[in-house]
């Protein structure tokens, strides 16, 4: 397949979940109030949180996958994947703050101070914000070697998000265990590579 074509249309892949969510929202507002179930705000919170997590896993997968299939075009999409992860995490937070809590600032503040799962989610979100804000070419140029160091923040962010999910889970840890396995395998891969190159 034409690599230029893949690169040019990659953004479609990034906005596909957004289009899906947008379609559901349009449905709920104009056609069928039940399209997102009886608790639509909670549904969107969960949906965007899950999509953000997928993109986070995708970012972490790029390097190992690239070494196997030697797709350099994919490597160039890594930053875009990371920005998408942040965008969906932001939508996740907006659904929670705007739709679920309806901007009750006092409750937002109390949650942030009292609920451990919100605290770790918030910290992870801040890290993703820093990474997304420094994902442009100018930042890469200006920061030079420090850019790579800074962007290793993605690993602690991933760990915090796993803790976030672990604390949200009620009766079963299967899903958290699966994502944890993925993240830990990738971490292991990464550290072995670094050991080799050192």
């Amino acid at each position, binding site marked *: 397949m034409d690599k230029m074509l893949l690169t040019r249309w990659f953004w479609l892949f990034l906005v596909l979940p957004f289009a899906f969510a947008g379609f559901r*929202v349009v449905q*709920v*507002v104009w056609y069928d*109030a*039940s399209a*997102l*179930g*009886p*608790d*639509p*705000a*909670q549904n*969107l919170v969960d949906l965007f949180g899950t999509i953000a997590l997928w993109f986070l896993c995708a970012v972490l997968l790029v390097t190992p996958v690239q070494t196997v299939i030697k797709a350099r075009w994919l490597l160039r999409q890594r930053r875009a994947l990371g920005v998408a992860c942040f965008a969906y995490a932001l939508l996740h937070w907006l659904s929670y703050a705007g*739709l*679920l809590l*309806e901007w009750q600032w006092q*409750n937002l503040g*109390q*949650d942030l101070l*009292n*609920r*451990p*799962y919100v605290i770790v989610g918030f910290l992870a979100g801040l890290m993703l914000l820093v990474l997304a804000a420094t994902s442009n070419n100018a930042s890469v140029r200006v920061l030079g070697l420090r850019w790579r160091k800074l962007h290793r923040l993605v690993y602690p962010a991933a760990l915090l998000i796993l803790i976030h999910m672990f*604390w*949200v*889970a*009620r*009766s*079963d*840890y*299967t*899903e*958290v*265990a699966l994502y944890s396995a993925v993240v830990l395998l990738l971490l292991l891969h990464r550290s072995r590579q670094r050991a080799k190159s050192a």
Partner: protein
Amino acid sequence: MKAPVGGKLTERDVTPETVYLNRRQYLKASAVGAAALMAPTLKASESAYGTDPAPLWLKSQNKQASPSPFSTTEKLTPYEYVTGYNNFYEFGTGKDDPEKYGQDFKPHPWQVTVSGLAEGTGTFDLEDLLKGLGVEERIYRLRCVEAWSMVIPWLGVPMAALLQRLKPLSSARYVAFETVYRPEEMPGQASFFAAIDYPYIEGLRMDEAMHPLTLMATGVYGRSLPNQNGAPLRLVVPWKYGFKSIKSIRKITFTDRQPQTTWEKSNAREYGFYANVNPAVDHPRWRQSEERRLPSALFSSNRVPTLPFNGYAESVASLYQGMDLRKYY
């Protein structure tokens, strides 16, 4: 009206809750001694809410339900949500999992084993256990600990009537309930990463169990309980968080010691034995001062303040007189 044969649209799809409501008000109006009149109306509502695969004896017992003064007149949560948005972790963690994965569960024939401090111990067919007990319709608020709530028209027998039939000894201070254990029909029970122990266990103090509001439910919306709602027999304690209302009950045990419940065992800091709805005591994960009354809309989540004992304080607060409800949450 007859449901179209082979068609996709069932009558349930086209019968709004208001129709059900009207039937109910009609029932209320006809009050006592109108069994003959009630039977046909409830029969109609049965076909309105899906096919009811329960055995005849249960269907006919449910059909003779009489209205109750304990019912609220608040707007009902639609049938599709009451039976499509559930926490029944034995069938999965998603809210739509119980409806999706509960269909292979076989609630009949059903037996209940009664043990402990009672004269009437043994294993009973459900039919014998319920025989002769009058089913009532109770429209109750249900408040989930996750800060959402519904209004649900249950059918069931007063728990006191059922327990009295089992002749508990005076030494029995608590009653424990246990959900059936069938990992081959309940994927959640078979999960390797389950975070709670199965079978699910719940319990009540005897005076809570004998309270007139406490219901042993056998149906909902004029029909027998669908699997996802805890077929064929479940507890309903309207002033406690939903997780107390244990589903698909297989065992009843009378004891003199407070039973350790499933959630208490998994996380005692978050879930207490009493679990009375209390807006003043926060849960580490969910704010309890208010709730979303479902269905909520996307841009207006229908928040209402949560009331002490879920609005049933007048009848039940006295059960807890002198107790520190922050300590006994």
